[in-house]
């Protein structure tokens, strides 16, 4: 880890040596700016995937911010803008609000929140958060886009509704419209299941049956474990008989979902959190010039880019883009630009990404991946919207109680 960090530091130094010569006419600004961006995360146990093929990622998020700060530094070097990434980890038993307030009191106003829901809410509700910008790279909860919105908080993470809409659009395009919803019991699973119900209704699919996974978690490492899985999964999934097109698996915490494909009672494909998965980012995506992006990330991080890395990258780059275009580090100026119609961020997904002003959710295409290849990208052809097809994913303006100004 130390060598990696040193390598990053080397990159930063290299970026700073880019010649600053020449007149800067035609460019946005010439005034020197110092822009510290705080990456705030919490010390947590890594999530153990059921598949041994999937890596155990110790530090999802931070490498995306590190890559983006390098990109900002290179751009900033032509403009006299200096970016610095301040990495702060809240201890496992620590208080995120206190840590946030310390940073805020030290004069730092730009934050990437790689924090879980309760921490994000705690910092967003602090009175001192008013003159900050907080980019949520992680929390997918729909209520934070629907009725609990905060002026400083921008979401670069997908909401569950966006994921569900992206998947169901594809299934409707395929005319696989009869869905068997098979969900776990955690709060997150229940919320995702609800997003799937909503998506089915929204796009003309049908939930023909529902069941929940009621067995105990299966350890990821058990000798002859497959024998039990092979017998248990058909039993667990026979409620819909074979009277459906696709099973929608909802298991956000890796308890059973990986075992569903090829072990369902009926011969049906699986989609959702497993099988065909809607995702903000994945290694399989190399379209729209992202080959270099994937390579640059792997070079510094030594692993593939996770969704939280991508969310953090988008947050840091959104700040960089707003600073470059406005020539300002002022929070109100940046916020106005980020919310405006002129803001467009290249995010390696083929179209410019922007923020919905009513809830400050980033509009973005959603990848549909099967862990081996990119299967499709939503929005799907034919799903129209009067503003942009991207607004066919997630909660639209008339559907939300949020009206951020």
């Amino acid at each position: 880890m130390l060598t990696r960090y040193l390598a990053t530091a080397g990159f930063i130094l290299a970026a700073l040596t880019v010649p600053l010569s020449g007149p800067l006419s035609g460019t946005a600004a010439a005034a020197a700016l110092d822009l510290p961006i705080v990456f705030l995360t919490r010390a947590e146990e890594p999530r153990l995937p059921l598949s041994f093929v999937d890596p155990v990622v110790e530090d999802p998020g931070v490498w995306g911010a590190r890559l983006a700060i390098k990109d900002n530094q290179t751009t900033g070097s032509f403009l006299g803008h200096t970016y610095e990434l301040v990495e702060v980890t809240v201890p496992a038993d620590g208080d995120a609000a206190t840590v946030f307030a310390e940073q805020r009191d030290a004069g730092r106003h730009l934050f990437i929140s790689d924090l879980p829901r309760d921490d994000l809410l705690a910092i967003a509700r602090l009175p001192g958060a008013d003159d900050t910008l907080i980019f949520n790279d992680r929390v997918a909860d729909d209520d934070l886009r629907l009725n609990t919105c905060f002026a400083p908080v921008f979401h670069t993470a997908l909401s569950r509704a966006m994921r569900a809409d992206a998947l169901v659009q594809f299934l409707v395009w395929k005319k696989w419209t009869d869905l068997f919803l098979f969900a776990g019991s955690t709060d997150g699973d229940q919320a995702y299941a609800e997003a799937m119900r909503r998506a089915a209704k929204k796009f003309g699919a049908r939930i023909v049956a529902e069941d929940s996974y009621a067995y105990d978690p299966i350890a990821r490492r058990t000798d002859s474990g497959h024998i039990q899985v092979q017998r248990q999964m058909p039993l667990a999934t026979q409620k819909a008989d074979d009277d459906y097109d696709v099973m929608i698996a909802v298991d956000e915490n890796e308890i059973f979902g990986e075992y569903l494909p090829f072990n369902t009672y009926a011969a049906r494909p699986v989609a959702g959190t497993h099988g065909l998965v809607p995702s903000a980012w994945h290694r399989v995506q190399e379209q729209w010039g992202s080959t270099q992006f994937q390579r640059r990330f792997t070079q510094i991080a030594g692993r593939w880019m996770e969704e939280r890395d991508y969310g953090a990258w988008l947050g840091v780059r959104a700040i960089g883009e707003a600073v470059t275009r406005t020539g300002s580090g002022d929070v109100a100026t940046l916020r106005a630009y980020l919310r405006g119609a002129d803001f467009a961020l290249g995010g390696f997904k083929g179209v410019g990404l922007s923020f919905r002003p009513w809830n400050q959710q980033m509009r973005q295409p959603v990848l549909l991946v099967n862990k081996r290849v990119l299967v499709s990208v939503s929005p799907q052809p034919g799903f129209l919207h009067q503003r942009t097809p991207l607004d066919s994913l997630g909660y639209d303006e008339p559907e939300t109680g949020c009206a951020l100004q």
Partner: protein
Amino acid sequence: MRDHLKENRLAQNLLKHPLAALAFAATLTVAPAAEAMTIFVSNEKGNSITVIDGGSLEVTATVEVGNRPRGIALGKDHRHLYICASDDDHIQVLDTESLEIVGTLPSGPDPELLVISPDGKRLYVANEDDNLVTVVNLENGTAMAEIPVGVEPEGMGVSPDGKTIVNTSETTNMAHFIDADTFEIRGNVLVDQRPRFAEFTADGKEVWVSAEIGGTVSVIDSETLQIKKKISFSVPALQPEAIQPVGIRILKDRSKAFVALGPANRVAIVDAQSYEVTDYVLVGQRVWQLALTPDETQLFSTNGISNDITLIDISRAKARKSIATGSYPWGIAIKP
């Protein structure tokens, strides 16, 4: 180039008078008639170069080349075609007569687009992975300089007098103006999102830079480095997101310019004096790069998803013919 043009017209006129042509041919060793024109197309997924006869518009050869060939350009004497073999991390040199690969040149990792200096002595190539522009000496085949630029350099242009190189960086969103003698950056012009391509006008006074995600073309004054005009595009019943300008070609007299609009599947025709868009020509899917015939009467576009190129008649502003190529045609170059 001028001489070739004259000879071209002469040869065309002579063709109307067969006897005279015979007499003429006897005295002329090289008679590059329009029909002798050869079109080279790189196939990004096909790992090949499609060779098309400019007269019959038939494919005459498909040459296997390196992995993921994208940007291609002809040398000054048209003997060699330089090919960015992106996944092989070098440039391949194709003999345009024998159609054999006769050498490779250093480029740094993942070369995408290249240009040749007007004197034919240098090759400039963008390396997206390393945020560098590499300068290759074509006389001895070595890299003579690496110039640090913005993140993900892609588009490369060189002024007609050879003194200025322009590079666009896709994530930094700038056009970098580089002095070709000192290799120092003279200035940086902020343009819209994901600038893909830079093209000088023949008089060297303007540089046109396309922004794929921004959906615009910035016309930059090459002296003052100010943006003179930002050209936008609009096609009825098409979402603005689908309009993604990439390749640009400008007629020498600067009467017209052509802009490939990517997934809008159209080539825009722009009045290059007033900067007004005058027409949109429907071609194939995901149109990225363009090439003019030497007499500037015809334009070809590469249509990646359709696996073909489209021939556009410039005076009528109409697509005349599509020619099937290999898989995912990307770059295009025309040998007179």
